């Protein structure tokens, strides 16, 4: 498997001097093509900062981030899905996807077909003409995912994308993301604080310590990606065992905090 993402000795702090807040690190991480890495950690442990470093929105205070051998640049090789859909309300659903295709360099003639494909991928066929405020929160997040996939990024970054959705919608989106990103070697780094979401989606789970976020545990998830219905998978004893293992690792980081305080 080829290396997609490498973080070496990465540390990041916000602010300067005595006001500096250490948010992340020191931290080393390799992500291979085709891996679905889920980062779990308590609130404020630097998960969003980690994604922003990988997306190229922040540069590490020390250490290096390399995506496909180069420092990351926003909009190149990575797609980002934020917690809020951040759709442009002055454009229709189709308009949002078309803008992404245009910025990705897709020729005008190919955009209409590509947009239809992307909408079908996220299960929103026929909703292209809708205004973004006319569709539900779950559908908006689906559009955001389609938009992030427009440039066919090698790596998809998702920052608690389902945290604001109701439980049923969340489960359906989890299932779709699981199958969607399991294609042609694309990698994903998905941030959540839900242990169940982590076990369900990941091929590998990284548990972060409390701030500044370091790697507390690195757990492989050898569950089948296809062929087993979600409800059945969740009932597997292996699934329950992994849940228990991850939950224990997360709890361990929390007790550390309590002992320190």
């Amino acid at each position, binding site marked *: 498997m080829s290396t997609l993402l490498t973080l070496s000795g990465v540390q990041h702090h916000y602010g300067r001097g005595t006001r500096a807040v250490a948010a992340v690190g020191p931290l080393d991480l390799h992500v291979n093509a085709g891996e679905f890495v889920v980062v779990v950690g308590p609130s404020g442990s630097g998960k969003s900062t980690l994604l922003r470093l990988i997306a190229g*929105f922040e540069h590490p205070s020390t250490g290096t981030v390399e995506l496909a051998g180069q420092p990351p640049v926003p*909009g190149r090789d990575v797609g980002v899905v*934020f917690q809020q859909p*951040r759709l442009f309300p*002055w454009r229709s659903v189709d308009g949002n996807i078309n803008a*992404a295709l245009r910025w990705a360099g897709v020729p005008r003639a190919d955009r209409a077909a590509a947009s239809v494909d992307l909408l079908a991928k996220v299960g929103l066929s026929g909703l292209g003409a809708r205004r973004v405020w006319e569709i539900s929160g779950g559908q908006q997040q689906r559009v955001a995912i389609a938009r992030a996939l427009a*440039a066919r990024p090698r790596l998809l970054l998702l920052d608690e994308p389902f945290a604001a959705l109701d439980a049923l919608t969340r489960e359906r989106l989890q299932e779709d993301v699981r199958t969607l990103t399991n294609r042609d070697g694309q990698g994903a780094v998905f941030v959540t604080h839900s242990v169940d979401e982590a076990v369900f989606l990941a091929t590998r789970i990284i548990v972060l310590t409390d701030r500044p976020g370091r790697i507390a545990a690195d757990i492989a998830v050898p569950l089948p990606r296809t062929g087993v219905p979600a409800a059945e998978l969740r009932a597997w004893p292996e699934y329950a065992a992994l849940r228990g293992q991850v939950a224990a690792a997360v709890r361990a980081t929390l007790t550390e905090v309590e002992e320190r305080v």
Partner: protein
Amino acid sequence: MSTEVTERPVVTSRPRGSARRARVFTRPALALLALLVLVGIWQLVALARIWPEQLLPTPGQVWHQLLVTSDSGNGQGGYGGSTLWERLGVSLRRVAYGSVYGIGIGVGLGLLMGLVPAVRATVEPLVTFLRALPPLAYLSLLVIWFGIDEEPKVYLLMIAAFPPVAVATAAAVTGVNRQYVEAARALGARGWQVVASVILPASAPEILTGVRLAVGIAYGSVVAAETVNGADGIGGMVLNAQRYNQTSVVILGLVVIGVTGLLIDSLLVALSRLLSPWRGRA
């Protein structure tokens, strides 16, 4: 009453709905009634002849002037060579040119001000200064520089129109939700693409508010602009009529200017609703 509302929403919703319908129905009706009462009082006061006809003509006389000045075959081509509507057209053309130039400059300058802090620091005091000046005050300078043809009039309206647009645009641009900008950058948008596809549309509702203000100011300044060699406009007609004590023509001019101004404003409100239907939804 209030307990009934909470306990029986189904029952109370019916009278509430009809009350809303009644309000929608009575509002324009009330306005019309108020207008009729006003004209009635005017008629009574004019007929009482407390002041001579020279000072206060009757509504009927003003109406008569409307008919006379609209008639190009009345021996003076309407009024002083052109009909009321031709004059209105001339004035509106000036307002349109002045507003379009002013809006163009305002949006461009405001964009620069909002994007480049140094530009804002340099230009903002100047814009604020211009905004504080009454247009009539700089008309003299414009006449010296540009003569007495169309230019100084259009420039006057332009200078009156651009500051509110520039200020509104600059404020809108600095206020754009950074999350949209970041989302666009994450999708590969660069430099000008971010400005054209995110910052400008995100600012549109606020810019349109500035435009509405600007057109109002330009329109309100057209009479001032026509004090110098502007006899062919509607403001010129009012100024001319004043010289000859034709009070009914003056009043007619005011009414036409006022009603047209209201129409333009409601048109702009409708336009901004049309152009930013997402206003307040994101």
